[in-house]
């Protein structure tokens, strides 16, 4: 049932604004892919293009082997979930879910009893059994979005597309629905593409994440790939907090000032570079080689973690350091930091 989606060098302009500038992406059958990016990066435009709600200026979208433009909207069989639900408010939940089945040509339309059964099964699947007589206005946001998903699944879609599906919901409901959607995908196995600007959501849910910026895909990869080995400074910064250090690479070592801070580099890129280090990759150490001296200026609580802001001579911005142990340094204390992992980018 699920189908591979191939996006081939898509370009799309809105008047003077280039929304997509040459985007290519291969999506495997039954894969769950997240399109992640800031607003205006083109992620929603790309999703609407896959659905056929927008037309590309250049390039094409293939479903399996078929060019999508050769199929009518109905034959594409796309399940689309909109950010603001887009439920039909004058229809009951049951009628909303049945809409796609009832819209089929008479010859392919299931019997009314069969439709009723399918609607019941789908509402069961989205954990809203027995709500089929309610109107959308009588449901909460999370329930509405699940109805929208059931409505999209009713047409047995070949591809499921979700546009910021949890964007309008509050934090707690988002977390619950995230886990639930992951589980649902595991059971139903639809090829799924979803758009989000929430990197946590993308990393947690998706098999692969495509990070978009300014109409281009910056990197595609698994959550581990993109988080630990970002291809560009943008990806590194967008996926989480990061400290930036200007360094100079000589041989296999990176130098901050005249002090070596990171060794064992395999890249043969000498000269000026920017070293990106996440707060959890800085560790307080006793005197050891490759250590960066600094003064603790501030201590903060950040959820389960404690975080120190450390001033380093020669660096305008204080470094954020996640504290691994319960023993926190005092404010004003002189410490040494060791970089356990970092990403090196050539200076722009």
């Amino acid at each position: 049932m699920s189908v591979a989606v191939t996006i081939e060098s898509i370009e799309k302009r809105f008047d003077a604004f280039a929304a997509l500038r040459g985007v290519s992406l291969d999506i495997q059958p039954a894969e769950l892919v997240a399109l992640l990016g800031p607003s205006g990066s083109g992620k929603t435009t790309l999703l609407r293009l896959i659905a056929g709600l927008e037309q590309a200026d250049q390039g094409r979208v293939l479903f399996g082997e078929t060019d999508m433009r050769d199929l009518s909207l109905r034959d594409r069989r796309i399940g689309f979930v909109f950010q603001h639900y887009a439920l039909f408010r004058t229809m009951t939940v049951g009628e909303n879910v049945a809409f796609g089945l009832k819209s089929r040509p008479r010859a392919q339309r299931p019997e009314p009893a069969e439709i009723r059964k399918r609607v019941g099964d789908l509402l069961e699947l989205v954990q809203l059994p027995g709500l089929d007589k309610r109107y959308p206005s009588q449901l909460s946001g999370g329930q509405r979005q699940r109805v929208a998903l059931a409505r999209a699944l009713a047409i047995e879609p070949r591809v499921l597309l979700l546009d910021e599906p949890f964007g309008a919901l509050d934090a707690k409901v988002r977390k619950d629905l995230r886990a639930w959607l992951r589980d649902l995908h595991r059971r139903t196995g639809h090829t799924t593409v979803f758009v989000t600007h929430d990197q946590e959501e993308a990393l947690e849910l998706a098999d692969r994440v495509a990070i978009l910026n300014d109409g281009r895909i910056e990197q595609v990869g698994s959550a581990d790939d993109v988080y630990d080995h970002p291809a560009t400074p943008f990806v590194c910064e967008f996926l989480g907090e990061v400290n930036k250090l200007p360094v100079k690479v000589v041989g296999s070592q990176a130098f901050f000032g005249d002090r070596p801070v990171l060794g064992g580099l395999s890249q043969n890129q000498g000269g000026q570079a920017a070293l990106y280090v996440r707060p959890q990759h800085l560790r307080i150490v006793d005197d050891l080689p490759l250590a960066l001296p600094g003064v603790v200026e501030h201590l903060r609580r950040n959820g389960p973690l404690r975080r120190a802001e450390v001033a380093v001579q020669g660096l305008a911005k204080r470094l954020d350091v996640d504290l691994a142990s319960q023993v926190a340094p005092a404010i004003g204390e002189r410490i040494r930091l060791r970089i356990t992992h970092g990403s090196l980018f050539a200076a722009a």
Partner: protein
Amino acid sequence: MAAATSVWRQPSILPGFGIALGITLSALSLIVLVPLVALALKAASAGPADIWAVTTSPRTLAALRLSFLGALFAACINAVFGMILAWVLVRYDFPGRRFIDAAVDLPFALPTAVAGIALAAIYAPNGWVGSLLAPYGIKIAYTPLGVMVALIFVGLPFVVRTVQPVLQEMQADVEEAAALLGAGRWRTIFTVILPPIYPALLTGFVLAFARAVGEYGSVIFIAGNVPMVSEIAPLLIVIRLEQFDYAGAAVVAMLMLLISFGLILFVNLIQARARRRFGDV
């Protein structure tokens, strides 16, 4: 606390209910109810026999029939075309959209006599449109058809302006959802686009209808005012007044009032039902 929770004094942290209700009732009485009661009294002064005679006279019945059926027909036409016009104005951006949007309001702003003269000039047998239709034996000016044309003209803005904001609020994504679920265009229009705007469409219909029933200025220029054929009820009232038959005029007026009130009440009840079901619209 019985007094505080009575029907007349509802507890609220927002002050001003008493005085607002007082002003509302006084204004409504002075401006609407008192004149209507005076009208009813005037009509009653004619005596039962005369009232019956005026009510059943063929000329009165013909005028009332033309006024109400004409208004109904015009309101139906306006509902269809006003709805399409509103949809085009909301969904599409095309050169001249703002101009058309502004032009919709002209029938509001124009003195109706001006509209009447303009319509009569165009639809008369020697006018632009009238001369095109005359060879086929279709006469518009000075016939009931002319009355309808004038009533359609004055009623159009009501439908457009009531439907437009509701369509605007309705996101395009609902239409897109229907298309992706495999619905054809007609199915989308009748099951997805129209149902949410029925209440607004009904309001526009009633306003256009009410305006058409009361319309006088534009109609008398184009209607020709032939008794029993193209004479509308408001004109009949004026004719009675000119003959110093005040009671007769009041009886015709009263009949119009009762029919209009009944129809509008009926439509409001339908709307209240729709509102209870789908939330506010």
